């Protein structure tokens, strides 16, 4: 016994240093964390003049006037949050439905087709969604959704104002389509990870498929589906080009779904190359920093949620 302890102690004392290959690839792999860190640090450093000049009031300011050098982020934060959350609300039921289908439907052929379709949906470039949203979706929504709702409920602020083709509604629909793949792919993995014994137990008690799904499978997968939603929310918050093309790009805070708005990412995309003066461009970088900080927190939270579930 004693000799065994001594020999392991000797072995650990003589353990060779990690081999060169491991050290080398570990250093190369540092590129990912370093890029992430560098993005945050560089943006914070670039935005510093604006941060010190405006203070925390920047986040709640409503003015955006390059001539008088007054800048406030509130309309952009409003537009970003409203479009992203509404997109999530629209996409969530469909996404969970698709996830259930991909995890549980009995026809493998059809399942594979839908799976490929959803994957392709994620691969289509954002600018293609943008041009489609601008020339196909926006006019259709205008004539078939916005005008009728506006006529029928003229007093409801949600449908009030003057309907426009490029509006919050159009941006919400485009975003909902774009986050659907994230939502359904992650939810599918989570639903698949639910132990089969739970399902069998419910069936053995005489539950139907839907009762099993609604009362057993979905509650068991709840945390993971929540994580998938947060992950999808992060994608929606940062989506730039498609939203820029369909949201109308006006920094207003209006209650109507049919009004134009502006998002953090869109205003940076539109105005950064034209920004004159240090304060203007650093204010835009600060908007970018707000966006990065938000998505960073949202993504880390979502990944931790999904991971704990995957581990069971």
């Amino acid at each position: 016994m004693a000799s065994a302890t001594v020999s392991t102690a000797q072995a650990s004392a003589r353990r060779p240093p990690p081999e060169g290959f491991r050290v080398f690839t570990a250093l190369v792999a540092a590129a990912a964390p370093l890029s992430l860190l560098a993005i945050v640090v560089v943006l914070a450093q670039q935005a510093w003049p604006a941060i010190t000049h405006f203070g925390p009031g920047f986040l709640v300011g409503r003015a955006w006037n390059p001539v008088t050098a007054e800048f406030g982020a509130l309309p952009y934060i409003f537009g970003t949050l409203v479009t992203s959350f509404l997109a999530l609300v629209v996409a969530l039921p469909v996404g969970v439905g698709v996830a259930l289908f991909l995890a549980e439907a009995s026809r493998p052929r059809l399942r594979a087709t839908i799976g490929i379709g959803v994957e392709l949906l994620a691969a289509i470039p954002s600018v293609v969604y943008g041009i489609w949203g601008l020339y196909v979706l926006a006019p259709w929504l205008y004539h078939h959704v916005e005008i009728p709702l506006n006529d029928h409920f003229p007093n409801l602020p949600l449908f009030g104002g003057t309907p426009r083709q490029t509006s919050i509604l159009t941006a919400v629909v485009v975003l909902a389509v774009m986050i659907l793949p994230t939502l359904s792919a992650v939810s599918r993995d989570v639903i698949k990870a639910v132990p089969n014994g739970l399902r069998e137990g419910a069936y053995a008690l005489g539950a139907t498929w839907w009762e099993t799904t609604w009362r057993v499978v979905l509650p068991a997968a709840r945390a993971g589906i929540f994580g998938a939603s947060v992950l999808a929310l992060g994608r929606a918050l940062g989506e730039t080009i498609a939203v820029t093309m369909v949201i109308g790009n006006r920094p207003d805070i209006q209650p109507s779904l049919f009004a134009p708005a502006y998002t953090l990412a869109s205003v940076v995309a539109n105005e950064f190359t034209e920004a004159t003066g240090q304060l203007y461009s650093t204010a835009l970088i600060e908007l970018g920093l707000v966006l990065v900080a938000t998505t960073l927190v949202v993504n880390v939270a979502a990944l931790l949620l999904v991971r704990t579930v995957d581990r069971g």
Partner: protein
Amino acid sequence: MRRRLGRDVLFKVLMYVAACVALLPLSLVVGYTIANGWQAAVQPDFYLHFERPEGIPGAGVQHAIVGTLELVGMASLLAIPVGILAGTHLAEYRQHRWATWVRLAGDVLVGTPSIAIGLFAYALLVAPFHHFSAFSGAGALAVLMLPVVMRTTEGALLLVPPGLREAGLALGLPRWRVALHLMLRAALPGVVTGALLAVARAAGETAPLLFTAFGNRRLVFNPAEPMPALPLTVFHNALTPYKDLQQQAWGAALLLVVLVLIVNLGSRLALRRQIAFAGRGL
């Protein structure tokens, strides 16, 4: 009981409806892009000429095609080797704490808004030199591609039966030979398709190029100059009021969609073959 069964059928139908609803936007986007873009994309001028002033016939997007090739090529040279080595590290030293951190950072980097990566590349590669350049655009795209290549490489390596690694180590091969000559070679089809998926993704990105490559109306080869790209052409031309520029935008969008469809469907076929092969190996 009948009510319970009725509800069961109702929700099963709803599940199928959700699956079909998910396919609807895909077919609409692809369908309309083909319908609006084919007229521009079938003309030889579209590939042989570059941008001309509005109203003069025979304009094309040759400059943007060349620009996209150049930008994505440079980004690939940077991101693919780094991504493959990093992915190898993640697969070979899975349980180590550093691998867990790198994996998390990679997943967060995938979700980082691409416009922020554009601002980052602007601050590092454009502002110090006082002019837009293809180099900076390629740098931004490389940051985007890196986590994708890294994670797909790791995934492909995990599909290789671990017995291969053990056999190599048992024969006394050093770890780097086992990792690079046995494992990576066995996983090669998966690694290559992962890299291709990253390339297709980078080719369609607009936001990181807005303040880096910036765009150009002429054909340029010098990577120190502002460089045009297909997504930039779609973005800028779609927002003009001119019909023929909009046509060009749809045509360029069609090229991007075709590229994405070919790479994604092709890689799916190739991967399926590899998985079948790996299964036989067991």
